[in-house]
Each structure stands twice: as structure tokens, then as C-alpha cells.
């Protein structure tokens, strides 16, 4: 062991422009976290979730289906699959797993202190981790959305599907679904990151949130607006019926839904930043 020492401080020049420093720090945090999100052991569950609709539709594509299947119905079938399986199950639980683990997972692994012992504003840490979660969830779940849609259309109706996507409204629908999935990742992601910071056992608040999103169709119009799913439903290209007991509310126009969702996301992230500023490391009690 060498005992030659080049003590002390600060060969590391303290940057004078905090924005430039923060961007470099966010990039470093993003890089480390993205690797964990895609390659860590915890990613296995996310891959399984992302593959769920793809493998179901892939299997259906292999099984010969009755030719009576009307091509015109496929848009509505996908709208059901998207609302029921992709958005409410895969994206919701996938985001819950990814974003809650950004901080809670590190508390469980007892490794969060390495970040806290670095000369980084804790708010910068929130941003870096959040962005890595958004990228991981978006890549996987937007991919799931696109592949699922293509698997529903192309295997049995190749030529009609080609016309639908390249000469008809298909491409616009596909991009809209992809955009809604990405917005879902952004919105749910912020909430789950916040929950992961506040609750020792985040599963319960996540389930409460799931219940709230699930019964959204029963809620009066004012309460509907206090949810993520309401805005996402307003944006999907094809609305699905929510059943005879649903309380009908006017969909929120996209020019309100998108900025509104982004604004709420920003507010939740600010609250998360405030929370992490005061967070203590007490692994013994985790």
C-alpha cells in the first residue's frame, strides 16, 4: 500500500457554472442508473411484464384465427387490449417497479449513501434517477405498445395492414398510442418515485393508487380529473366503453391534458426533491 499522499483538496476545480456541473452530474447518474434499470436483477420482472402482451399476441398470431375476424374491428380490439392490459397493468405495474426501486431499492440494498456522500445536490439526484426511469420504462413499454399493435394487425391481414399503416390512419394511431404510453411513464413515474421516497412499504400506497385509477370510471367528473388515467384515456385515439355504470365525463382536450399531466409531474418531482433534501439514511429501520 502506498503511503505517498497528495493530500489535500481541491485539485478538483470547483466549476463556476452550476448548470454545466449539474448536467454532467445528471448524465453520470443517468448512465449508472440506466445500466441498473436494464441489466440489474430487478429488470427481469420488467422484461416479463413488457413481454406479456407481446407474447400473448405473438401466440395468437401463430394460432390460425377465423377469417371472419373483421379487419375493421381490430382497432377496437387493440383499444381494449391497450386500456385493459397495456396501460392499466403492464405500464402501471412496470412503472411502479422501476420508479419505486430507484430510491427504495437502494435503501433496501443499503447503497443509497454512496450518492448521498457525493458532492451532488440531492435534487440533481432525483432528476438523474427519474430520467433514467423514464428512458427505461419508455423504451420497454413504448416498444411493447408498438410491437403489440403490429402483431395484432400484420400476421392475419398483411396487405390491408400495410395500407392501413402507410396510407390510412394506422401510423397516426400507432404514434398516438406510443405517445400516450410515454406520457404514462412520465406521469406514473413521478408518482411512484415520490411514493418510493415517502413510504417504507410502497406496495400499499401503490395498490391504493391502482384502486383509484381502476374505479376512475365510477367517479364523478371532478374526481376523475385527480388521476393520471383520466388524462391518458382522453388522449388515446379510440375511446372504449367503460360499461353501463360508468359516469360519463367529457374527455379533456389534448392541449390541456398533455401540459396538465406534465405540470403535475413537475410538481410531484419538486415535492420529491424537497423530501430527499431531508431524507436520512437509517438502514437499520428500513
Amino acid at each position, binding site marked *: 500500500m502506498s503511503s505517498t*499522499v497528495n493530500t*489535500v483538496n481541491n485539485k478538483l476545480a470547483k466549476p463556476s457554472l452550476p448548470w454545466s456541473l449539474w448536467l*454532467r452530474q445528471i448524465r453520470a447518474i443517468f448512465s449508472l442508473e440506466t445500466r441498473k434499470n436494464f441489466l440489474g436483477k430487478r429488470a427481469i420482472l420488467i422484461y416479463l411484464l413488457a413481454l406479456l402482451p407481446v407474447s400473448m399476441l405473438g401466440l395468437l398470431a401463430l394460432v390460425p384465427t377465423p377469417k371472419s375476424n373483421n379487419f375493421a374491428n381490430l382497432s377496437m380490439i387493440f383499444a381494449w387490449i391497450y386500456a385493459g392490459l397495456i396501460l392499466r397493468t403492464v405500464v402501471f405495474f412496470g412503472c411502479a417497479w422501476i420508479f419505486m426501486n430507484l430510491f427504495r431499492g437502494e435503501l433496501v440494498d443499503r447503497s443509497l449513501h454512496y450518492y448521498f456522500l457525493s458532492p451532488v445536490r440531492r435534487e440533481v439526484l432525483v432528476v438523474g434517477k427519474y430520467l433514467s426511469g423514464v428512458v427505461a420504462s419508455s423504451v420497454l413499454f413504448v416498444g411493447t405498445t408498438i410491437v403489440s399493435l403490429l402483431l395484432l394487425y400484420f400476421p392475419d391481414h398483411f396487405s390491408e395492414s400495410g395500407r392501413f399503416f402507410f396510407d390510412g390512419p394506422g401510423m397516426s394511431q400507432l404514434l398516438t398510442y406510443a405517445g400516450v404510453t410515454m406520457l404514462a411513464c412520465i406521469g406514473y413515474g413521478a408518482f411512484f418515485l415520490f411514493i418510493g421516497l415517502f413510504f417504507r412499504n410502497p406496495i400499499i400506497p401503490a395498490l391504493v393508487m391502482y384502486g383509484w385509477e381502476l374505479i376512475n370510471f365510477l367517479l364523478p367528473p371532478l374526481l376523475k380529473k385527480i388521476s393520471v388515467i383520466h388524462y391518458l384515456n382522453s388522449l388515446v385515439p379510440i375511446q372504449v366503453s367503460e360499461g353501463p355504470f360508468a359516469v360519463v365525463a367529457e374527455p379533456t382536450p389534448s392541449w390541456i391534458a398533455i401540459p396538465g399531466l406534465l405540470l403535475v409531474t413537475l410538481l410531484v418531482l419538486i415535492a420529491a426533491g424537497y423530501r430527499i433534501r431531508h431524507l436520512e439514511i437509517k438502514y437499520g429501520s428500513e
Partner: protein
Amino acid sequence: MSDTEQQVEVGTDQIRNSQSAIRNSDRNSKFAIRNSDLIIFDDVSKFYGEILGVNRVNLQIGPGITSLVGPNGAGKSTLMNLMTGLLQPTRGAISILGTPTDQPEELFRKVGYCTQFDSFPRGLTGRDFIKSYLLIQGLDHKQADSLTTTALERVSLLDAADRKVAAYSKGMRQRIRLAQSLAHRPSVLILDEPLNGLDPMVRAETIALFRSLADEGMHLIISSHILHEVDMMSDFVVLVNNGYVVAEGNIHGVRDEMEEHPMQILIRCDQPGKLAAHVFAEDHVVEARVHEDHRGLFVRTRRADDFHLLLNRIVADGEVNIESIAPVDDDMNAVYQYLIGSDGGST
């Protein structure tokens, strides 16, 4: 102040009165140092709900090696976690070389902390582990690579740098954490039980490393259970018990201040009986006992300095031929035993 804090205060008054936080003059001389060169605890308390972590801690720590010593649960790690902002004080304030602990972006350019948590981010090699957190500081890859290599060299882990940390032995994990904490060349290095899990050879090398860092002017705050190592490497000690600082300062200075525990000294000489007769005349000598081999005298004195002056006079008079004088309980182990009431679990 909460009811709990008041109860704790009342309950611990006895401790504080009987042990009355010994602060010796060496430590006090540090008040001349500027606040920006000191680690300062200003009336710091930390409660975990109703449980006392530490209470009313006032400390000023200067450069050199300062050891935090105390039994398990005494509050050593709490003090370290407070120093690094991992915990926030319930009351009081802490500053590290002039920087408050709630400003990590400033604080950790000056401070490195090697915690006791034997855990790592998953899937990283030793090199990746150190480099990743250097990049997070905002360094470019070239700087980070260079500092990473230097840190790995310093803890003799260069050969194992590209292996996964998960495959490291306990001692290697300890060393890689040490390397990570000092990679950015901090001015203050805080080390929670840094010698745990190290084999004797590496222990010696690590202590030498600490010593050289201290000689360069760094502040090293080290907690340890190994009292003879504390004795060997520390410039100052802070004894913590039940959440209170019970003594602080230079080990020998602390020992000198403990008047309720007279200092034991063994004097090797040719006429122990005659020497005993001389020393008994002094009121600060409370006990004198001839050694079993009749070639020495054990003396217990309340004022070691006065006793040494007396010996000088006796030697000058030529009445007794003195071969050697050695304090018997002027070490960390004795200080620990007297103030905390056990041997610390290891010696």
C-alpha cells in the same frame, strides 16, 4: 425541549457529573485554530423518536487523527453520520471546515466517509465503483480514471480492480470502500471501523496510510474498538458512552485529568523500601507497593507531574538508584476502563 430529552438529561446527569466530560489542555489549545479548519459540533443532540442517539455534544476537532472510542451503541456511528449529513441533528449545528452538513454539494468536496455499511451498488467492478462516483462529482473520464487508479494503488487493490466487488473478500471490500472515500482527495476523512476485516499486514499498512494522511494535514476521524491501535495511531481521542462525550483530548492528557483514578507508575530501583518512605510523605501519593521481586515500587499518585519532580529530587540527592520509570495505566485501555467501565471488548 421534548419530555424525552428532559428525562434523558435528568437520567444522565449522574454520568456527566461523575465523569464530567474531561477535556484536556491540548485539546483546548486548538481554539486558536480558525473555525474554517475545524470540525465543530455545537450543542448537538440526536433522538430517534424517543431513543437517544447522542445528547449535547460539543466538540472542536482539528487536523490529525481523532479516534472515536466507546462501546457498541455508544453513539460513535451516530456522530459520524451526523458529521456527514446522513442524519440531521434534532438540535444544534455541525460544521465541517466552515461548511454546514446540509450542503452536500459543498461538503463532499472536502469530506470522504467510509461507512460501516458493507454493501455496494450491484454489478460493479472495483474500478467501476470508484470511477462511477467520481463521474457523479462532475469530473471527466480522464480525471476520474486517474484518481481511480491512484486510489486503488493506495489500498493495494489495483490487481483486483476489474473483478466484481461482489466477488471480493471482506478485507478487500473494506479496502475498496476506503479507496472510494479518499479517491477525490478530501481534507476530512471519516472512517467507521476501517480496520475491520483486515489481516494484520494490511492493518499495519492501513494505519501507516492514515498516519501519513494525518501528517499531510488531513483531518481523520476514526472509530475503532481495537484500543491498542487507537493508542498507537491517534493524536486525540473522543470517548463516547450512552450518547454522551465523556472525555476528549490527547490520551495522556485525558488520563492526567482523571483525578479520581490516580496514575499508576512502576519505578524500577535498587531500594524500593527507601523510595516508598520518601514518596509516602507526599499528600498526592495514595498508594505505594513494593514489587514482588523487590526491585521495584508501584506508586499511585493523583498528580503525576509533581511525582516526577519528586523523583528528580530523589535521584539528584543520590539516595536511591533508579533504573526506569514507566506508567502502568497511562494508555487507552486504562482510560477506557476507568471512564466506561470495561475493556472495550478487545485490547
